[in-house]
């Protein structure tokens, strides 16, 4: 089975982002998607800290401590980009103006519930940032994650056991082995990696899948 590595997952997500889309890429794994967006297409990256038209990392030595992304890494602004305050930035999210946001996850449920902010461990210091706003704000929420935990548990579950970030908000799941749409008609498997049969995939997850591949 040709399991995708994290760069390949990012490239796979990037292929589904059309020209003209307004997109927020969550911190961590989703940030890699930017590396695979075609430079000759106008795709508008939003950063929660007040940027639209965010560009790639600056050349070494060109970093500006006042031009950073949500992960606090130095970035650039494209021609035609602009700055705004946090109120306007989150109105863009919460108001449904973003076409797509891409988030990482600890777990996603068969109903599209998302858990990605808190392990629930009693001694953990919680931190939520913009995750809950992104989860419920964008027109489409894509989740990127390996399908299984390091110990082989499915992260696609019937009900999330970790604390929720949002309810019924995930539209599509990009994993290392399959792309799955979460719909009212069930979990539609759109793609599987070579060497993984539908039955093999179904055996990995505790919730019923529907074979919707081309």
């Amino acid at each position, binding site marked *: 089975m040709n399991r995708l590595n994290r760069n390949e997952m990012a490239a796979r997500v990037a292929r589904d982002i059309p020209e003209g889309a307004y997109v927020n890429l969550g911190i961590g794994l989703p940030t890699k998607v930017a590396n695979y967006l075609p430079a000759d297409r106008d795709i508008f990256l939003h950063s929660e800290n007040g940027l639209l038209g965010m560009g790639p990392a600056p050349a070494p030595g060109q970093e500006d401590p006042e031009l950073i992304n949500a992960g606090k890494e130095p970035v650039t602004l494209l021609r035609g980009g602009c700055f705004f305050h946090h109120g306007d930035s989150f109105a863009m999210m919460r*108001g449904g103006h973003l076409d797509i946001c891409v988030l990482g996850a600890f777990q996603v449920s068969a109903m599209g519930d998302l858990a990605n902010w808190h392990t629930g461990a009693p001694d953990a210091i919680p931190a939520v940032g913009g995750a809950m706003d992104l989860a419920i704000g964008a027109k489409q929420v894509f989740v990127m994650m390996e399908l299984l935990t390091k110990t082989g548990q499915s992260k696609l579950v019937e009900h999330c056991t970790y604390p929720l970030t949002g309810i019924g908000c995930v539209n599509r799941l990009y994993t290392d082995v399959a792309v799955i749409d979460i719909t009212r008609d069930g979990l539609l498997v759109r793609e599987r990696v070579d060497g993984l049969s539908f039955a093999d995939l179904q055996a990995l997850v505790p919730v019923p899948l529907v074979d919707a591949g081309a």
Partner: protein
Amino acid sequence: MIDKIVSSLDAAVAGIHDGATVMIGGFGTAGMPNHLIDALIAQGARDLTIVNNNAGNGETGLAALLKAKRVKKIICSFPRQADSQVFDALYQAGEIELELVPQGNLAARIQAAGAGLGAIFTPTGYGTLLAEGKETRRIGERNYVLEYPIRADFALIKAHRGDRWGNLVYRKAARNFGPIMATAAACTIAQVDELAELGDLDPEGVITPGIFVQRVVATATAAC
């Protein structure tokens, strides 16, 4: 390449359907998108619900849209003016519905729609006729009225300059409702005095980021 600039006013108002809710910017005549309104009259959509601060001045612009009998209902704060004769006649004949909203609640409800809020408790209008029948609540030392978002299918606004990504800047008091209406409509259409090259608008000074704008038309160059 994304280019939101459309080449004619006709193209700018294409698809505005009968029964649509249409926000129209402007306060008095400042910032009124008169070219777009004229194009909308020519386009023919009817049974419209219009959201504007006023209800038309004189015989042109919004008043002309009203006079053409295209408007079923108007949501505004200040319909009655010295030169609001078109609205006045329609209203007194029972041919137009009026929802009167205090100006600040009009702004706040438009902003609530743009920002994805479900409702807001506002102090304005508490205890008055305009809050009759509405839910109220005492919070802390004050009384508030629960008001709901006002969303639109289309917003027609006037800006000073715009680029192909839809970024806009305004001019003086013509800014008024434009920036907030742009956030609350599914399709925002801006008439601009001038087009700008991408990157010519100062990124620190863009007032309406392009995410809120779907179509831009220049009034200097566009033929209807």
